């Protein structure tokens, strides 16, 4: 019967260690997904209109301003304007303290690419999207 308790203890220890590294040492890209991975994951969920899951990547402030249905409208506008999106990748632009910028690079047919710059903010130890940047303008056009 020792193993379950030992496992719980091991988990608590490792979680404590992770929390120490993230909150204590201020880790921004090793034990937490870096800004480019957050942007990539967000756009990967946005493209197939998995808006509820995409909302998880938004900062508290932005998620209060934008609803899942608005995000779905943005998703439809993105796919309407870009057409077939073959792949999505994230690229880091800059990171200063708790703020960062990263590009979502969309791979399109015939070797074309489209690039959208998003602003991020570190919240509860994780990078969250604070500014939709060029993506937000799609909704208006």
């Amino acid at each position: 019967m020792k193993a379950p308790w030992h496992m719980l203890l091991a988990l608590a220890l490792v979680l404590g260690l992770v929390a120490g590294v993230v909150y204590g040492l201020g880790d921004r890209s090793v034990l937490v997904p870096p800004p480019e991975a957050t942007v990539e994951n967000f756009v990967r969920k946005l493209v197939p209109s998995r808006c509820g899951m995409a909302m998880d990547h938004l900062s508290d402030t932005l998620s209060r301003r934008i609803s899942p249905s608005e995000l779905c409208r943005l998703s439809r506008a993105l796919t309407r304007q870009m057409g077939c999106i073959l792949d999505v990748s994230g690229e880091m632009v800059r990171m200063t303290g708790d703020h960062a910028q990263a590009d979502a690079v969309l791979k399109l047919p015939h070797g074309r690419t489209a690039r959208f710059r998003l602003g991020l903010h570190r919240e509860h130890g994780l990078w969250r999207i604070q500014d939709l940047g060029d993506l937000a303008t799609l909704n208006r056009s």
Partner: protein
Amino acid sequence: VRLTAIALRAVFAYCFLLLILRVAGKRTLGQATPIDFVAALILGDFIDDALWGEVPAAQFVVAAGVLMLTHILTRLAGALNPAMGRLIHGMPVEMVRNGALQRAGMRRERVNPLEVAGLLREISISDRREVECGLLESSGQLSVRPHAWAKEAQKQDLERVREARR
């Protein structure tokens, strides 16, 4: 920076997996039963996301830890309660008795005679008649009890021969 981050994540994931596998016990991921195989498969999938930094390390730790904890509790239930053990691991099925194939068992496990012959060859038995009882274990391996006449000669048999000669 990205390569350093990947290297650090790899070291972290390795150390964490080493820790939970040591805590879980020796047989946990021996892939002895189907449930061990499933646990190993899921654990292998978790590490992929953690290595590329697609999920926070805390999510990886919780997911992998809870999976192993569930696995330990399932195995523990199987060890403490024989009925539960049968439900989790299944029962061995007879494939060969006194050299004859047991068609009912083979049908139940969807095994053909060629596969039985192959399983026997894996344990160095080329003639089915040597087998007194052959069971297909939940690990998918065949465990065999050979007839007394088919057993390999031991050192003590040599002593008996020497004594008989004297």
